């Protein structure tokens, strides 16, 4: 078992290593862009309030996917149980977070609490 892989190992390993390394470099580059853009937009008021909020939200979600893909190596081609667990947790989060905000904002409106 140890004879044959070791003969081919150096070439295979260096290619795999470059791929793993580039994953982190790409992740860093994309995350930097996705961070710098919203910070610059807020710093220099590049857009109206609503457009700014939507852009911040969308870029944050893209950056989360970038971190999952390039730093945590979770992708569609990999072991699917990890992805299922993320998607299940994400669906729970969406139900609970947006459910909470919906109910509380609705309650505030009905009780005339400024929100």
């Amino acid at each position, binding site marked *: *078992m140890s004879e044959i*892989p070791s003969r081919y*190992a150096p070439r295979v*390993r260096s290619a*795999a*290593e470059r791929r*793993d*390394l580039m*994953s*982190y470099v790409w*992740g*860093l580059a994309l*995350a*930097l862009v996705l*961070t710098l853009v*919203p*910070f610059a937009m*807020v*710093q220099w008021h590049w857009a109206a*309030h609503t457009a*700014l*909020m939507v852009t*911040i*939200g969308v*870029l*944050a979600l893209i*950056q*989360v996917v970038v*971190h*999952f893909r390039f*730093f*945590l*190596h*979770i992708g569609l081609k*990999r*072991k699917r*149980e*990890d992805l299922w*667990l*993320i998607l*299940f*947790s994400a669906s*729970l*989060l969406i139900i*609970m*977070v947006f459910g*909470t*905000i919906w109910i*509380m*904002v609705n309650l505030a409106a009905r009780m005339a609490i*400024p*929100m």
Partner: protein
Amino acid sequence: MSNGILQHPFLDLEARQNKQIFQYPGINLGTEHEEAHTQAESMLFGFWVFLMSDAIIFGMVFATYATLVSGTAGGPGPRELYHLGPVFIETMLLLASSFTFGMASVALKYKHPTSALVGWLLVTLVLGLAFLGFELNDFSTMFAAGGVPTRSGYLSAFFDLVPLHGLHVTAACIWLVCMLGQIAVHGLDTKTKLGLLRLALFWHFLDIVWIFIFSVVYLAGLA
């Protein structure tokens, strides 16, 4: 190959190794690491379950913050208390530490000299501690401006959310020191490798939580 690690009795362990069907979240060590690689599948998936439950906790604290953000009770609000500069530095520090931990993972996987691995881990630790220093300075600035947790519902929610992440980073830094001690005492044995793989997941996860914090709390608060 020892017998105690056979976790899938219906499949030949060696056949599974050769087909590289051991896979888990984060960087995969590969068959070169034999026992650490085969044990990582169940261990890292278990740790992943913990991370997702932690994500639910953070999600509910975020929802609390979102419902209370306008409840300033006449006290200082986000515009008076937040400063974009330090938050930007904190974001860069955490992103850089995620990258340097990635370099440490590559050094571990491809069996670089242990000194290289320890070097990347030390850089990561310094970046993590610098992040905590900037964050504590933020909090003291807020306190000085009257932004204490007891002032309003908004401030209670803020100090529930952001320091919770800071506590996680503190725990991760302590864990990192423990891993350095484990490397020093035991070397890179299977337990140490599995610990480093789990800490890497935790570290990258905390960076993802921070994306939500700088977007939802700071950028939305100052937009």
